[in-house]
C-alpha cells in the first residue's frame, strides 16, 4: 500500500469511527462535551504515562478513558449543586484538567516524546511511519489496525445497544420506566466517546476530533429525521470529508487534519443551504409558493 492510500484509509476510518458516537452527542445536546473530553484525556494519558513510563502501554488508553468519564462526572456533579449552569461547569472543568496536564508535561516529561503540539494539533501525515509487523511481515500502517478496531468496537456496541441508546437519548423517562438506567447508558456512551477520542486524537489532534465527532452528524441531522439513516449517513459523510480533505491537503501541501475539518464545514454549509427538506433555499421556495397561492386566491 502506498503511503497516500494508507493515510486516506486512516482518515476515512477515523472520521467514520468518530461520527458514530458523535451522532448521539448531537442528539443529546452534549456536543461541547466532546470538546471537553478531547482535551482532558491528555491528563489521563500523562498520569498513566507517569505510572508506566511507557508511551506504548495500553494503560495509557485506560487512563485517558477514565479521565474522560471523570470529566463528565465532575461537570455533572458541579451542575447538580445548582450553583452554576452546565455550560459554566464545562467551561471551568476542562481548562483546569488541561492546564494541569500541560504543567505536568512541561515540568516532568520534557525528555519523553510527549508534547502538547502533537496532542492539540495531531498529524496524519506521519501514520505510515509506524508499521504493524506480524511475524516479520509488514502488513500496513499500525494506525489502520488501531483505528479499524475502534470503528469496529463503536459499530458493534452501537448496533447491540441501539434500542437502549435510542430510547435513552430521546426519552430518558421512558427508559427509566422500562427498567434500564439512563445513567448507565449515559456513562457507557461517554466511555465510548473518550475511547474514540483517544484513538483519534493522535491522527487529528484534540480540536479537530471535535470536527469529526460533531461536524458530520450535524450535517446528517439536517438531511434526515431517522436515526437509522442518520448513523450510516454521518459515517459516510465523515469518510467523504476524509478523502476530499486529503486530496485538498495534497494539492495545496497543507495540514491534512485541518483540511479534513474544513471539508466537513463545507459539506455542512452545502446541507445548510440546499438540504431537500430543511435547507434555507427550500424554506425560501416554500414561502414563495405560499405567497403565490395566497395571491392567486385573492385574485
Amino acid at each position, binding site marked *: 500500500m502506498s503511503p497516500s492510500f494508507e493515510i486516506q484509509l486512516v482518515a476515512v476510518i477515523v472520521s467514520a469511527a468518530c461520527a458514530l458516537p458523535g451522532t448521539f452527542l448531537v442528539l443529546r445536546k452534549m456536543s461541547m462535551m466532546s*470538546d471537553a473530553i478531547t482535551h482532558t484525556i491528555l491528563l489521563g494519558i500523562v498520569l498513566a504515562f507517569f505510572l508506566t513510563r511507557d508511551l506504548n502501554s495500553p494503560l495509557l488508553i485506560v487512563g485517558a478513558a477514565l479521565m474522560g468519564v471523570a470529566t463528565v462526572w465532575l461537570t455533572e456533579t458541579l451542575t447538580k*449543586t445548582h450553583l452554576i449552569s452546565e455550560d459554566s461547569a464545562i467551561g471551568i472543568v476542562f481548562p483546569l484538567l488541561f*492546564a494541569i496536564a500541560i504543567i505536568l508535561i512541561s515540568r516532568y516529561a520534557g525528555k519523553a516524546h510527549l508534547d502538547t503540539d502533537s496532542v492539540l494539533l495531531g498529524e496524519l501525515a506521519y501514520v505510515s511511519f509506524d508499521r504493524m509487523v506480524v511475524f516479520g511481515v509488514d502488513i500496513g500502517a499500525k494506525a489502520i489496525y488501531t483505528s479499524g478496531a475502534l470503528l469496529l468496537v463503536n459499530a458493534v456496541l452501537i448496533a447491540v445497544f441501539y434500542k437502549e441508546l435510542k430510547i435513552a437519548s430521546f426519552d430518558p423517562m421512558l427508559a427509566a420506566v422500562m427498567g434500564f438506567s439512563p445513567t448507565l447508558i449515559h456513562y457507557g456512551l461517554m466511555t465510548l466517546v473518550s475511547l474514540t477520542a483517544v484513538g483519534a486524537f493522535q491522527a487529528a489532534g484534540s480540536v479537530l476530533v471535535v470536527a469529526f465527532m460533531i461536524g458530520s452528524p450535524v450535517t446528517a441531522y439536517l438531511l434526515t429525521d431517522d436515526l437509522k439513516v442518520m448513523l450510516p449517513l454521518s459515517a459516510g459523510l465523515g469518510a467523504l470529508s476524509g478523502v476530499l480533505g486529503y486530496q485538498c491537503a495534497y494539492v495545496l501541501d497543507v495540514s491534512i487534519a485541518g483540511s479534513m475539518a474544513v471539508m466537513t464545514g463545507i459539506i455542512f454549509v452545502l446541507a445548510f443551504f440546499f438540504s431537500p427538506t430543511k435547507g434555507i433555499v427550500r424554506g425560501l421556495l416554500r414561502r414563495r409558493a405560499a405567497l403565490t397561492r395566497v395571491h392567486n386566491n385573492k385574485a
Partner: protein
Amino acid sequence: MMEAVLSLLGDYTFQIVALGSALLGVISGALGSFAVLRRQSLLGDGVSHAALPGVAIAFLLTHDKKTEILLLGALLMGFLGAFAILGIVRHSRVKFDSALALVMSVLFGLGLVLLTYSQKMPNAGQAGLKRFIYGQASTLLQRDIFLMMAIGTVLLLVVILFWKEFKLLSFDPEFAAALGFNTGKLDLLLSFLLVLAIITGIQTVGVVLMSAMLTAPAVAARQWSNRLWLMALLAAVFGAASGVAGTLLSSLVPVLPTGPVIVVCVTLIAAFSLLFAPERGVLHRVYRRLKNRAQFQTARESKI
C-alpha cells in the same frame, strides 16, 4: 524566599508579564460576568478557536507580525464565528451547542491549514503565530500592555455606559424589549465586547485556557454576591489576583508555564468560593440542613 520575591518584583520583565496577566484578569472577569449570567460561558472557547484563521489571514495579507494587526484579524474572524453560530441556530434546527462545536472546530481547522500554508512562505512567521494557540505570557511586550490597557479602558467604559441596558438584557431580555430597548442591537454590542475581551486574552493564555479566564472568576464572584456590580467587581479582582499569583508562581518555580498556572489559580478561587461562600456555598447548605434537622427534632420532642 522573601528576597527572591522582592528582587522579582523589581524585575522589568516580571512587571510587564504580571501587569499583562492582571489586565487580562480584570477584562475577562468583568466581561465574563455577563457571559456566565447569559449562559454563554462556552462562547469564550468557541470564539478563541474560531479566531485562529483570522490571525493567519492577517499575516498572509500584510506579512506583518505586529500584535495589533494579527489581533485585528482575530477579532474580525472571532466576530464572524460568533455570527455564524448564531445564524446557524436561528435558521436551522441545529442547537447552540452543536453549532458552537461545529464552527469552532472547522474554523480552527481552517486556521491550521492557513498556518501550514504560511509556513512555506519565505519569511515564515510561524513561530510568532503559534503563540496564539498556546498563549505565551512571557513574550508580552510593553507595547502589548499598552494595547491591552487601551482595549480594557474602552471595554470597561462601554460596559459602564450601557450598564443598565446590559443588566436588563442579561436578566430579563423580554422585559427589556417591552420597555422599548433595541435588544437585537444591545445583544450585538455585548457580544462584540465579549469577543474583543476574548481576543485580547488569547495571546496570554492561549485558545484552550481562555474559556476558564472568562468563566471561573465570574462563577467565583457569583457565589459571594447577588448584586451584578459587586459580582463584576469581584470577578475583575479575582481575575487580576490570579493573573499576578500565576505569574509570580511561574517565575519562582523553574519550568512552570504561566498560562496554565494562572488557570489553576483562578479555578482554585472558584472552587473555594463554591465550597465556602456564605449563604450559597456547599458547606453553608450542609450546615443549614443540619440545623433545620436539629430544630425539627427539638420541636418534635417538646411536643411529646
